């Protein structure tokens, strides 16, 4: 029996020794897996965006684009996020919605901009979506809901229009897991604080939208698909209870008014 136990232990030890030795090699780098993943993300992002281009009305006002870009740029610079990797798109639609696509595509609906009381509230939502991008939640959600095999098929051009549309619908109108949403909310607060913007308007925005949900029935996708907005507003407010900081608005009131005016003209 002793011989058997000894031989068994030797086999187990050899197996684990082999596994641990092989673990020392950086296979991910060796097989360029990260590069492959990035390529898949790029192809998926472009594929989804092209589908969107054919179905939605895109903003054509350069002033609106410039102001939104300046907000995103300010947040990115303050948080050491590569601004060049973020592609901001403004969709002309009444729906209060914003979401991220793979490869850094950030889509903001004009309905969301119009419904935001001020630039800090809008910045909060932008920060929330940037957090989803930076924390790789977008790909995680896609893999979980669609599967890596289907995603790879899509990038090979054999996914079928129906699957692409359904996947795009998943991304634009469903929330992430509760834990991922909370992580993105808190990361958004960090981003806002780093950008010296007050995070409380973001919490207030969530609270206000939840009360207006009935009034704006069908147009508040960003709220109705996400976890309870009151609960979110509460933990955001709790999280940012830091010693008072010299907050400053992310853009001037004048620029904010200009944004709203240009948007209404469309």
């Amino acid at each position, binding site marked *: *029996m002793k*011989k*058997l136990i000894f*031989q*068994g232990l*030797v*086999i187990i030890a050899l*197996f684990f020794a*082999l*596994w*641990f030795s*092989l*673990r020392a*090699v*950086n*296979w*991910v780098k060796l*097989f360029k*897996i990260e590069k492959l993943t990035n390529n898949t993300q790029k192809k998926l992002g472009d594929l989804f965006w092209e589908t969107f281009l054919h179905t939605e009305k895109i903003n054509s006002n350069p002033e609106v684009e410039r102001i939104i870009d300046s907000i995103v740029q300010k947040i990115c610079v303050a948080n050491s996020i590569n601004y060049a990797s973020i592609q901001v798109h403004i969709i002309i639609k009444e729906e209060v919605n914003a979401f991220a696509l793979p490869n850094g595509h950030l889509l903001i609906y004009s309905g969301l901009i119009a419904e935001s009381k001020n630039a800090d509230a809008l910045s909060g939502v932008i920060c929330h979506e940037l957090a989803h991008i930076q924390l790789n939640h977008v790909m*995680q959600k896609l*893999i*979980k809901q669609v*599967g*890596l*095999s289907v995603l790879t098929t899509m990038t090979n051009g054999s996914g079928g229009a129906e699957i692409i549309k359904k996947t795009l619908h998943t991304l634009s109108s469903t929330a992430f897991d509760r834990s991922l949403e909370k992580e993105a909310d808190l990361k958004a607060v960090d981003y806002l604080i780093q950008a010296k913007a007050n995070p409380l308007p973001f919490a207030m925005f969530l609270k206000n939208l939840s009360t207006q949900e009935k009034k704006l029935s069908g147009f508040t996708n960003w709220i109705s698909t996400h976890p309870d907005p009151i609960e979110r507003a509460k933990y955001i407010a709790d999280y940012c209870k830091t010693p008072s900081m010299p907050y400053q608005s992310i853009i001037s009131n004048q620029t904010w008014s200009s944004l709203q005016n240009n948007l209404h003209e469309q």
Partner: protein
Amino acid sequence: MTTTTLINPTEHEAEKASNSYLMSLIAVIAGLPLPIINLIATLIFFIGNRKGTYFVRWHCTQALLSQLSMLFVNSFAFWWSVSILFTAETITNQFIAYVFTILIVNIIEFIATIQAAIKTRKGMHVAWWFYGTLTNIICKP
């Protein structure tokens, strides 16, 4: 690491003992990805020969035991791969190292199985390291 002894079984015994090893290679021949197929094939052969001679039973047991341990390591890799394909799990150095480890282990097991099948067909008794010792405890004349 094997021990080989010549014990002169009958032609029929040597063929059955050799087949017990060949059964464990059936999934590789059929190209099936499920690790349990090997085990099921070996198990069916083991049950069919449980009343056979000591030489046949002994080799059926050794083949079954080796497949049983292979089932654990291969199943782990199988479900790990499934979780990468269908959940948020990602490909890591740990996963690739595990795949290479079981690939090496499977190749060693494959060569050892073929070698055992050839030797038992010639009437030789082949006892593997650990599995042979375990089979001696389980299988009594």
